[in-house]
């Protein structure tokens, strides 16, 4: 990445002037934290004693019996998804910046729960924006956020999902920027957010690379992850990006395929590959999985796609549901619907040695799956 927050022609800062000083402050606060060994030490300690790191690597023998398939178990992380890695890191950063109020957006509710959790842990005020449709389909997570003391604000316009929730969280931040840190949930948004989220999620890639080497004595041939905004994918990819022989494969929801069918466009503060029309207006995404139901994606993924370093494919709602059921029955692991998209593409891969990021657990999705 360049100093201007660019990944090739993607990224940047397309934000109202009001936010620019806060982004500059965040950028220098982040660089100071990274240079400070006590910051990393605090994150490591929290990861070990609060979040449950390292998460295990599980061999899944029955799901794809002709492969050597391993699952990186972010579903076993505290709060049930990889989102906590980012929320913890940004909360520590927010404290260093003396911000006592946190706003966040959430789709599946996993990022909202992770944010509400770290705010409870550190005594920070927490407001989470969530689309009404997502509040309906991810009810258990709304209840968890409420219990944790967060205020969940319903977003009632547009498609009432993650895109609108993100816009409202950013508007809140514009209005309260002096006191508030915006704890964005994926590797999207204006610079430096994509870099911060990638670095905080890179622990997934670091751990799983070492674990895979230990288990197999060699690296995987392919690393597979679902892509909504792209944070669990960029986190696990980060561990293998310099290993030219390891293929990186992102799986999007078929009707929310920002990388598969998007155009270069500007959304939520960055230029990336976005579902958008010829006039630059953002078009609707659709997915059974609230966490993938987003028309944008992190700018680094657009760049990895263009450079050919990573490949991106789609999985339909039906394929994800089938993978959800199969993993449950064959491995005794109930995955979230988001990583079920990654699992849906595993069996047909040419490669034999496969690592999948199991980004979260499926408790939140039971009502939605059982209703199908």
């Amino acid at each position, binding site marked *: 990445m360049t100093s201007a927050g660019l990944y090739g022609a993607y990224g*940047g*800062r*397309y*934000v*109202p*002037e*009001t*936010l*620019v*000083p*806060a982004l500059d402050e965040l950028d220098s606060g982040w660089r100071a934290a990274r240079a400070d060994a006590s910051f990393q030490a605090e994150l490591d300690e929290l990861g070990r004693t609060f979040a449950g790191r390292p998460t295990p690597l599980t061999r899944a023998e029955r799901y794809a019996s002709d492969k050597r398939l391993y699952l990186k178990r972010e579903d076993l992380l505290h709060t049930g998804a990889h989102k906590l890695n980012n929320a913890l890191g940004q909360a520590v950063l927010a404290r260093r910046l003396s911000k006592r109020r946190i706003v966040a957006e959430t789709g599946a509710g996993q990022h909202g729960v992770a944010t509400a959790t770290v705010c409870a842990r550190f005594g920070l005020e927490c407001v989470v924006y969530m689309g009404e449709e997502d509040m309906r389909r991810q009810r258990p997570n709304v209840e968890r956020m409420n219990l944790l003391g967060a205020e969940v604000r319903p977003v009632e*316009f*547009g498609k009432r999902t993650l*895109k609108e929730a993100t*816009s409202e969280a*950013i*508007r809140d931040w*514009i*209005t*309260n*920027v*002096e006191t508030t840190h915006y704890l964005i949930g994926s590797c999207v948004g204006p610079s430096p957010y994509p870099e911060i989220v990638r670095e905080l999620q890179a622990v997934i890639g670091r751990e799983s690379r070492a674990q895979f080497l230990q288990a197999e004595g060699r690296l995987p041939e392919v690393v597979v992850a679902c892509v909504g905004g792209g944070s669990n994918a960029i986190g696990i990819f980060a561990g293998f990006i310099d290993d030219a022989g390891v293929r990186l494969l992102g799986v999007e929801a078929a009707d929310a395929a920002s990388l598969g069918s998007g*155009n*270069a*466009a*500007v*959304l*939520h*503060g960055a*230029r990336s590959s976005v579902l*958008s*029309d*010829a*006039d*630059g*207006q*953002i078009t609707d995404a659709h997915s059974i999985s609230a966490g993938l139901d987003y028309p944008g994606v992190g700018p680094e993924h657009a760049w990895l796609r263009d450079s050919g370093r990573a490949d991106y494919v789609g999985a339909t709602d039906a394929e994800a549901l089938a993978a959800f059921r199969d993993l449950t029955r064959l491995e005794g692991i109930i995955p979230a619907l988001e990583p079920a998209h990654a699992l849906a593409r595993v069996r047909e891969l040419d490669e034999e040695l496969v690592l999948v990021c199991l980004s979260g657990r499926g408790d939140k999705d039971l009502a939605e799956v059982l209703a199908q």
Partner: protein
Amino acid sequence: MKTLIVYLMSGSETPELAAAAVEGGADLVELGFPFSDPLADGPVIRRAAERALGEGMRTVACLECLARTHELVPNVPLVPMTYSALLEAYGWERFATDAHDAGASSMILADLPAGERPELKRIQLVAPTSTDERLRIAAEQTDGWLYLVTVTGTTGTRTGLSPALAGLVTRARAITDAPLYAGFGISTPDDARAAAGLADGIVVGSRAVEVAEGGPDALREYVCTLREAVDSVVTN
């Protein structure tokens, strides 16, 4: 004389509305080109944008609306106000050229802060959170006048003038001789008078968009009250 600026969302009736605003005393008209995800806008302009898009007000239709408005009020500066996404799709230079050809005197991009794409001539916005260094960059790069965002926040009506404006005017005045026009959150004649007492001019957006729903006569009358308020400020 203080400058009075009225913001209207592009639409089929906008040229006539703009003409009414000018009859009521507007010196300049901003024309919103709607974007589906307008981060800098509060509910009134967001909803107006949704309606406009629903009626087919895409970039080409907005440029036509601009051209028709220019025919009706040829001597009044017209300034499209929009978002980067539209220019990214249309072509940045092509947009600047076509907007100019349709009668635009400049443009405003709500999400392209000073320092980014300096080659694109536009009116720069500054906010209460802007550092003096950023005020300086914006003043150097701006096209004619500087847009002072009165509040830390989005567009939308508020009660009373933002207390942050006075400090922002003082800081900006120390840096530049460019005219300083204040906008965001100004809706009543009282707000207009108070803001015009501090800045060289004012911009009224959300409230004008709401009043414009009542048609040209209602808008003309409303803009008249703003004009009187602004003119009641003694200039020296």
